[in-house]
């Protein structure tokens, strides 16, 4: 059953591999510089590495938009996105996997009456516009630099040709890595909260988390898509890109890869944060639109004659049409899956505004004065909860998400059996010691465990306030999410 449900994501991964690999190796294969099998091998390997190593950041952002909490729901979200990509490609309409999955998640949120964080949604929407613009800017700068470099360096035609080939292959590998890192969230992101796998331990130092296992599967699905179906797309895209000079084609692939990398790299985010610079949101973006943006950027540098306005209009059209279609398919699909096939597409959750929760919300800067009348009230959907709270107090999108997070009831039981069975490698000795001190405790709300751990050990404390601590806090939250999963009381 698990595999059947996962097939939705695998289908989406396959179609992503079939379509988007052309953006990174289209030029090299289309111009027959690199054999298809070589390109597919490099692409497949680097997509998987990218997905496993750097796929977490974008997945967390998707998770904020909507945490699909049942395997059936995840299946339908991924399947609806896959179907949208397939149909739109078939009808020759511009399509992006990233935009399709966002539509699906919103579809699930609407169907399950879950809260949609508008600030996260706006953040994602802004990156769709930013992605081709940034790609155009990077391509224009890179093209100017590369051109002046070629003019300055003493090099002959054959060596220039050879170096360009090598550069195209390396750019392709980087592009595949970035594609895996950025777009794996589209393929497997919706399955992460309901990951059906146990952590795998290899020796004492190496383990693969359930999310990484999902990413590996998703990466493999993308690789299969590359091997089985991308050749034709590569030849088509390659011939389109080949109207560019080899240098310009390399710039297009590099700009695309850099943009995907920028929107996926947690390490870069950390570096920027350490330098007190604004960080780039980790969001899945469209690979095809990044390439089109890069080609436009090169066109502008060359005098602007190459700008293809119809392609720009089609990109903008895709921003609206793709998520709408995907959202609609997802809602209809969820209805049928739940009512015709009797499958669970959403897990019933309870949200309670207890006194403790209200206190916690106050700590987060939320005005709780008008919420006393709601103390003790239980809600069965996050959207309803936020609606009711909003009637009493003003809430930003982010605060709405906090209300949902803190009032979600999910009983945790800390016992020695679970502590023994968990993967202790991810915790520091101090963190583990603090956890062991809590043995025998029960918590009604997951955040209470986080607070209890923070009270015992500095290493569990969230620092908050500022970009520099963002990654530190994110790591602790990831560990806490893992603990919530492990110590969650199973339904009897």
């Amino acid at each position, binding site marked *: 059953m698990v595999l059947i449900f996962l097939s939705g994501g695998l289908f989406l991964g396959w179609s992503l591999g079939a379509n988007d690999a052309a953006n990174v190796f289209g030029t090299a294969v289309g111009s027959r510089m690199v054999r298809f099998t070589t390109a597919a091998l490099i692409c497949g390997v680097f997509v998987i590495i990218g997905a496993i190593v750097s796929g977490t950041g974008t997945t967390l952002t998707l998770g904020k938009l909507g945490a699909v909490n049942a395997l059936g729901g995840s299946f339908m979200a991924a399947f609806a996105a896959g179907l949208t990509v397939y149909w739109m490609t078939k009808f020759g309409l511009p399509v992006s996997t990233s935009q399709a999955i966002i539509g699906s998640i919103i579809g699930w949120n609407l169907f399950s009456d879950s809260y949609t964080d508008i600030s996260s949604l706006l953040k994602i929407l802004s990156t769709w516009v930013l992605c081709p613009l940034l790609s155009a800017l990077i391509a224009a700068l890179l093209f100017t630099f590369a051109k002046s470099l070629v003019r300055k360096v003493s090099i002959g035609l*054959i*060596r220039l040709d050879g170096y360009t080939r090598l550069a195209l292959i390396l750019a392709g590998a980087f592009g595949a890595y970035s594609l895996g890192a950025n777009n794996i969230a589209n393929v497997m992101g919706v399955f992460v909260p309901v990951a059906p796998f146990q952590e795998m331990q290899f020796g004492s130092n190496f383990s693969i988390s359930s999310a990484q296992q999902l990413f590996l599967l998703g990466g493999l699905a993308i690789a299969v898509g590359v091997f089985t179906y991308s050749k034709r797309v590569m030849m088509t895209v390659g011939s389109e890109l080949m109207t560019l000079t080899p240098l310009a084609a390399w710039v297009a692939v590099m700009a695309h890869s850099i943009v995907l990398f920028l929107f996926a790299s947690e390490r870069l985010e950390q570096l920027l944060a350490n330098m007190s610079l604004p960080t780039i949101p980790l969001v899945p973006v469209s690979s095809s639109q990044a390439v089109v943006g890069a080609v436009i950027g090169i066109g502008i540098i060359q005098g602007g004659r190459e700008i293809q306005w119809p392609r720009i209009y089609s990109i903008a059209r895709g921003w609206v049409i793709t998520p709408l279609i995907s959202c609609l398919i997802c809602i209809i699909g969820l209805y049928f899956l739940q009512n015709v096939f009797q499958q669970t597409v959403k897990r019933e959750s309870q949200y309670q505004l207890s006194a403790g929760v209200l206190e916690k919300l106050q700590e987060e800067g939320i005005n709780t004065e008008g919420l006393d009348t709601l103390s003790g009230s239980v809600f069965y959907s996050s959207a309803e909860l936020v609606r009711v709270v909003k009637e009493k107090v003003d809430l930003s999108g982010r605060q709405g998400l906090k209300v949902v997070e803190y009032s979600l009831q999910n009983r945790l039981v800390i016992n020695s059996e679970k502590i023994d069975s968990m993967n202790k490698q991810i915790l520091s000795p101090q963190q583990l010691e603090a956890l062991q001190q809590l043995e025998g405790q029960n918590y009604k709300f997951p955040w209470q465990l986080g607070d209890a751990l923070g009270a015992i050990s500095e290493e569990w404390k969230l620092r908050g306030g500022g970009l520099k601590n963002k990654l530190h806090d994110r790591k602790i939250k990831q560990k806490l999410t893992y603990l919530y999963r492990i110590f969650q009381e199973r339904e009897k």
Partner: protein
Amino acid sequence: MNPLSLLFKKQYAVEEKVQRLLRHLEDMAHQYQAAYEAYLDGSIEEFSQRNQELGEIEKELDELGHQIQMTLLHESLMPNSRDDLLWFLTKLDKVPSSFKHSLGDIVLEKPEIPEDLHSSLRNMLIHTHQAVQALAHATDSLFSDLRAVRQHVEEVGRQESEVDKLEHKMLQSVFENENYELAKQYQLKGILKQIGRVTNLAEDVADAVLILATKHST
């Protein structure tokens, strides 16, 4: 060993063959000038020997050109660059043939070249030699330093212009000289045109070199 030389072994091999081809071309230009001068000096034996050597160099050059074409067709150069290079080699191939045809006319017709034309003709041969040498340097730069191509191409143009001027002046003096019969005038015209053709071709090929250099460095 430089890891790049391992990685780009095939490319370096093509470059090495092109270098050899260019040295042959320069040798041909030298033999051509030397053969013509021997003929003007009346040393027919040396002329024949030089002509024979020129023929042998041309054969080697042909063979080398063929090898380069086959390498380009079968090895992994980008199609865009490969097509450009094949187009260029076909153009370059016409220069050695023009040397051969020019001397072939001398062998066949054994023209009597009037003494008063010798000095200008020798000058024309020097400029022809220099034009082909500049072409070889331009081509060399195409394969080693794209930036340096333009200056060599301009040099080819300058030498061709000198040859043109000399050719025109000599043709004028030939046709103004009433002592020459019409047949003689036309025979000399043909010989001068053949020499002029060598530099015209050299200029054509140099232009192609410049087009390729510009195309591939932008």
